[in-house]
């Protein structure tokens, strides 16, 4: 479709051919070009009016007009309203600045388009001009040499010998920790002692022989499991004041637990 030339005798608007425009700035630049004046002297106000008209018309045909075109249109409408303020009012700095910025962007876009055109006119390799099709390679690769170092030889020998040593001496580590069974036995001995004690720390169960940290932890775990097991069957009572505090235990009030325990 074509817009009729401006009724007020200004500038004939260009063909409305939205497929030709990639975006709002594109269209603006084309409108500016249609004014056939130096971009530096173009009237932003006129440009805005044309842009809004074109977009308005386009919208009635092309509903799918991209949202950013409308954003730009809204922004330009705002710009127009500010630029139209009566002269007696103080000049609107924001609007002046925005108009200046728009100017600069249009000029930069125009420049980049010119640059793109210039690039397009350059003879393009493999299109307009061609390089040699068949490469001749004068590089010969000589792989006869050997790169070896004594350090690598010794390193290799050492790794052979280390592997060998490891092979010879390897034995799975046998762990002999204090077990739950040990703990149950120790606990029964404690409870059956003639002087049945009151609250006792669970740690007291762990034999002094468990010296390494790992062994001691294993023994503690065993003692706790044994304690829990026996608490379940009612022969002991467990107590812990606060989390992570010492765990205390004593024989249950009912003395039935003791003969029960002896069955084992």
């Amino acid at each position, binding site marked *: 479709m074509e817009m009729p030339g401006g009724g007020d005798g200004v500038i004939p608007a260009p063909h409305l051919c939205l497929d*030709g425009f990639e975006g709002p*700035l594109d269209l603006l630049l084309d409108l500016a070009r249609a004014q056939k004046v130096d*971009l530096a002297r173009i009237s932003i106000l006129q440009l805005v009016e044309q842009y809004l008209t074109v977009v308005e018309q386009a919208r009635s045909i092309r509903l799918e007009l991209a949202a950013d075109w409308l954003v730009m249109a809204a922004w330009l409408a705002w710009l127009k309203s500010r630029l139209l303020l009566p002269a007696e009012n103080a000049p609107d700095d924001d609007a002046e600045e925005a108009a200046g910025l728009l100017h600069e962007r249009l000029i930069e*876009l125009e420049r*980049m388009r010119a640059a793109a055109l210039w690039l397009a006119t350059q003879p*393009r390799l493999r*299109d307009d001009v*061609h390089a040699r*099709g068949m490469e001749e*390679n004068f590089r010969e690769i000589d792989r006869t040499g050997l790169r070896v170092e004594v350090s690598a030889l010794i390193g290799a020998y050492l790794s052979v010998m280390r592997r060998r040593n490891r092979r010879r001496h390897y034995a799975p580590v046998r762990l002999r920790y204090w077990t739950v069974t040990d703990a149950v036995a120790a606990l029964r001995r404690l409870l059956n002692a003639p002087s049945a004690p009151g609250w006792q720390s669970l740690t007291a169960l762990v034999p002094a022989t468990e010296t390494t940290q790992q062994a001691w932890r294993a023994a503690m775990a065993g003692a706790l499991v044994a304690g829990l097991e026996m608490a379940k069957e009612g022969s002991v009572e467990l107590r812990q004041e606060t989390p992570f505090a010492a765990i205390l235990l004593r024989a249950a009030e009912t003395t039935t637990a003791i003969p029960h325990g002896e069955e084992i």
Partner: protein
Amino acid sequence: MTVLSRAIEAMIFASQEPVGEASLRDFLEQNGASPEDLPQMIAEISARYDGHGIELVSVAKGWQFRTCVELASMLTTVVERPRRLSRAAMEALAVVAYHQPCTRAEIETIRGVALNQSVLDALLGDDLIVPRGRKEVPGRPVLWGTSGKFLSAFGLVDLNALPRREELLVEPVSAEAPDEDGIAPVSEDGPT
């Protein structure tokens, strides 16, 4: 014509890519000549190709033989052509060339339109642009710049061979000047 100048000619001729000046100088030095002689040798070689179908051109900081531009149309049927870049891709490429290193967002701001992924893919696919680090702003977007392939593709010695920014707009304005004298402009949209 000396053996060395013939050898230099052969060296450039044999290669599919531009041969860097450094390699040529090295070659001269290794063969007992002065690297200073290179410019004169190049000039001699170049002169010998007057009237040939191929010419010696300076491109991407090196030398390369290429077929003459005016034979382009005759050769189209013979040699496969790469696909042409779209207008959007050419514009985006121009923006990268003049604003590098720049982010995708910066390209979009200058062109006033979102950069389609296919455009970026086309430029990357032809190795015309390459990542040049990241911009230290939130999101650390990739900064793009033109590649050596870009120079070679468009027959440029280096980036300085691009028209200066100030020169870019001189031509279109002068070209449009007659329009104001009442001559109907021929715009891309067709005559009014």
